[in-house]
């Protein structure tokens, strides 16, 4: 469980948290997409706000995939610099900033572990992340909406057949290629692809309530 954060100038807003009542952060009425647009004019304040909103989610994912805190930090820095240098890469008509950002974090993290040859990391994360001690219980500073969504995602993963969950978990959280997943699980690569496709289709249905404007989008663009 993440310990409660102390107050102070360097304390970051939790990525998934909405501000507590009466504690709206600076820039609370600005959407992520607007902040990204401001990056084109080299507005470091906008970058700071984006980091405050999403740095935690980005770091959490990077650390999970990299299984290495230093690598995870490098990945997060790299991703935010990508955003800083080339904000036009984000197209608001194709999704939310947070989805785009996390996709980039995932790709960079996978690249990092492959590059560092630590992809055979310390654990094989075949289980869904909700089984992690600490992640099953919402952290103290995670606000209600973020917790609900996180639990919804974990529940969706638990609803998947174990072989589909394993295939997706190895690829997404472990950074393994489909061929490697086939080798690890001892099934043909075609079976792995089929499991992944079917698993994603099921997840898409199970996560529909949070993939629409009522869920993840709220976290991203209507802060």
């Amino acid at each position, binding site marked *: 469980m993440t310990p409660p954060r102390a107050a102070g100038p360097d304390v*970051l807003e939790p990525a998934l948290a909405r501000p507590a009542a009466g504690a709206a952060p600076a820039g609370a009425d600005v959407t992520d997409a607007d902040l990204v647009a401001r990056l084109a004019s080299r507005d470091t304040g906008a*970058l*700071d706000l984006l980091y405050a909103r999403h740095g935690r*989610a980005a*770091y959490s994912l990077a650390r999970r995939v990299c299984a290495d*805190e230093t690598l995870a930090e490098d990945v997060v820095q790299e991703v935010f610099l*990508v955003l800083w240098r080339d904000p036009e890469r984000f197209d608001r008509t194709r999704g939310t900033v947070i989805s785009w950002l996390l996709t980039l974090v995932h790709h960079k993290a996978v690249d990092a572990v492959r590059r560092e040859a630590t992809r055979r990391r310390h654990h094989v994360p075949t289980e869904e992340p909700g089984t992690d001690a600490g992640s099953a219980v919402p952290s103290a500073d995670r606000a209600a909406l973020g917790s609900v969504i996180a639990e919804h995602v*974990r529940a969706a993963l638990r609803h998947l057949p174990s072989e589909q969950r394993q295939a997706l978990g190895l690829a997404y959280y472990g950074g393994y290629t489909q061929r490697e997943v086939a080798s690890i699980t001892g099934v043909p690569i075609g079976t792995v692809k089929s499991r992944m496709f079917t698993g994603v289709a099921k997840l898409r249905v199970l996560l529909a309530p949070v993939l629409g404007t009522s869920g*993840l989008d709220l976290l991203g663009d209507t802060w």
Partner: protein
Amino acid sequence: MSAPVPPHDDELAGAVVGRALHALEPDEEDRVAEHLRTCAPCRAVLAETRATMAALAHAVADADPPAALRRRVLDAAAADPAPTPPPVAAAPEPPPDVRVDDRADVGTDDAPTAPRPVGGRRLALLALVAVVAGVIVFSARGLVTGPPADDRSVAAARAEQVITSAEQRDPDVRHASLIQPGGVVMAVVLDDAGGARVVPVDLPELGPGRTFVLWRVAGGSATAVGTFDPVGTYTPTGTPAPTGTRPGQGAYAVSAEPSGPVPERPSTVVASGPLV
């Protein structure tokens, strides 16, 4: 929310999902990338899968980033040079971490632009890797000698992405993939009207007090044109390319040298590649 169904067999549909998961081998990455350029239903699958996968990110154990990371990000941004407005022919190449991973950009696959010879170049690069490494890279069973296949393939893919990105900004840019004896691409040299610059891909360890020197090889001679450190910071020597050669011809090589004055000749060449 309705799930788009690609008009293909399970194998290809699974490969598209694999691309969204960043879980394809380089050769298949090329195949799927080419397919996506002409298949709107599969692009829809890709986009939906990415959105679904991004949701999975919220299920990981919460972790506080170090407080110093925020300052690191902001300092790096503040130190980052402002981009030069187009035309970009003479624009400085941004550090490699920006450009080598365009595939991760959500928009890249969904809105294909001009067709890119990705697969062809990747194959050519891998073939070049084989030649430079002095080994037969591929056999019926895959890589047979040298560093792990993934190292070579990943580096080749990164180099290809660097080149593609550079060509999108300047179609006339020349490039040389600097390949190490083991077959791993070390860096890409981009050579245009603004001169040469180095984009690191997979730099080897360099001991303290040493630096990399970039040599332009042409007409039977080698001229030191710049130096760069282990993080890729490139400093041109100001020495013009060898006389009697035309721009775009020859090759580049990298040597590891003691820091200080650049030697007249390279001592230990660690990578090289033709300028194309």
